[in-house]
């Protein structure tokens, strides 16, 4: 798809549209790094898209480009039909990071109110909205608590409530459950799906957990490093009603396998590794099999 093709499509249907985006850090210096090359991607309204790939593949960079926290070297990023900087100015998206990033000096409800405060909502209205959000993440019993009095999972739920407070059409999440234990993680994944389905929120979700990407997403974007680019788009199609049984269904397993294989394909992609693989193949199938163990 070319940039021109994208331009003629109606923009109202897509939550995010990334066209011909490249990102070079330290451009023009000897330390120049091509973080992303020629990325085209769009996410439609209400869609849940995960970005997955090995470290250094630029998935976080891509997310930060959508958030307009950094500007692309070339190409365009459109959010809700607006240029990314305009979308940021309008608070069209909410964001959550791996660290909950709550402020110690505010209690739970005041943390959730922060984006509304910056939008200039009056006190009563933002308190109402924040309470509604806290009910949504089931933390309405902890309104007056301080962040450091909560568990990691609860803190992350407050962060999600904060990200959703201004009712953004789009949620950008950078490994939000990365620091949590497996049980909390699965619980919050289900919660997130429920909340986003209720509000019709689109989500771009960065992760390096394959089951997490498969469970949550309508579509998984597989990326490869050096330079960062998209190697495969995988439609998951687990349907809207996912629960704990979904994690044990054959479809789930087959999709996990599909994503895993797509990621493996990447591993062979660098020249050095191809050379090693060839040498190993020459040396016999057993050696190649052992090399595959490295691949996780």
């Amino acid at each position, binding site marked *: 798809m070319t940039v021109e093709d994208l331009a003629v499509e109606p923009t109202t249907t897509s939550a995010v549209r990334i066209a011909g985006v490249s990102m070079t850090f330290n451009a023009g210096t000897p330390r120049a790094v091509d973080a992303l090359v020629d990325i085209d991607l769009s996410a439609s309204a209400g869609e849940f898209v995960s970005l997955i790939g090995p470290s250094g593949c630029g998935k976080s960079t891509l997310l930060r480009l959508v958030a307009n*926290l950094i500007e692309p070297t070339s190409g365009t990023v459109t959010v809700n039909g607006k240029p990314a900087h305009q979308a*940021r100015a*309008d*608070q069209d998206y909410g964001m959550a*990071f791996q660290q909950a*990033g709550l402020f110690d000096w505010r209690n739970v409800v005041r943390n959730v109110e*922060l984006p509304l*405060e*910056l939008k200039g909502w009056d006190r009563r209205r933002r308190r109402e909205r924040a309470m509604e959000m806290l009910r949504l993440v089931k933390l309405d019993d902890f309104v007056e608590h301080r962040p450091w009095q909560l568990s990691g999972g609860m803190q992350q739920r407050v962060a999600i409530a904060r990200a959703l407070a201004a009712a953004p059409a789009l949620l950008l999440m950078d490994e939000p459950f990365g620091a949590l234990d497996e049980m909390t993680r699965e619980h919050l994944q289900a919660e997130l799906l429920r909340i986003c389905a209720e509000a019709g929120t689109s989500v771009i979700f960065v992760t390096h957990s394959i089951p997490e990407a498969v469970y949550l997403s309508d579509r998984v974007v597989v990326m490869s490093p050096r330079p960062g680019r998209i190697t495969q788009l995988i439609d998951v199609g687990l349907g809207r009603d996912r629960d704990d049984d979904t994690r044990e269904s054959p479809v789930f397993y087959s999709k996990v396998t599909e994503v895993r294989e797509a990621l493996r394909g990447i591993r062979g992609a660098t020249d050095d590794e191809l050379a090693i693989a060839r040498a190993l193949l020459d040396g016999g199938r057993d050696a190649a099999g052992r090399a595959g163990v490295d691949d996780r």
Partner: protein
Amino acid sequence: MRKALLFVVALASVAGVWELYKAVGPAAGGDVLGWRILPRTSDHAMPHVWEMIGRLFDPESRSSSRQIWRVVLSGAWFSFRLALVGFVVGSVVGVGLSVLMARFGIVRRGLLPYLVASQTVPLIALAPIVVSWSGRVHPFGLDVPRWSAVSLLGAFLAFFPVSVGTLRGLLSTSPTSLELMRSYAASWRQTLWRVRFPAAVPSMVPAFRLAASASVVGVVVAEISVGLRGGIGRLIIEYGRQATSDPAKVYTAVFGAGVLGLAMASLVGTTDSLLMRNRAPAEERAQ
């Protein structure tokens, strides 16, 4: 309650050590490895603690009926007010400078070396200059009171720890917090009030403590070098001159200086605990 008890115990042990050394130390001082470092313990050099305390209730001089403790306390109160003005002015200037330095890298790079250099100027060299200004400058046609020069010198010592400590705090905000504020398209000012300042509080608290004691030192030294009457600095000098005939008297002024320092420290301490309420206990934050 516990704290008050500890305080009394600490005071008593200082007095105890003083008396103990006085009892066992050499009266004419002593040499250690050829160096004359042991202080003399004669009543002249080291008066008894009870003598110092007793002197507090004697009249200041033969011609005066005022007891010494009244004079010392009013001197301490006088100096306290000057130090407080110096502390507040110094803090406001310090915080203002740190905000400018946090906002503009060029200000930070240009100003910071001069701030450090400013603290190497001896206060007693600066005092006469400031005093001569206060005689000559008449903002809005008003006379500048003489005490303001002393407060200004207190402020001169106080602003430095505040500006450096606050700057450190303002620049130590976590990148995630700043990114979050950026994602809300928050202005620099909104970020300053909602994130940078609150995040800087743990660095500002010790800076204010340093500034409080610096302003006290500044004011006492400035009183002496400016020759301002009424404060504790002047009393120390006056009573010190009488030390040959009345060695215990000068210690009453030193007590006054101690009370002054304590008053300032407890004032700042109260402010600090107000600022730090609701913050995570240190062990939680370390995690």
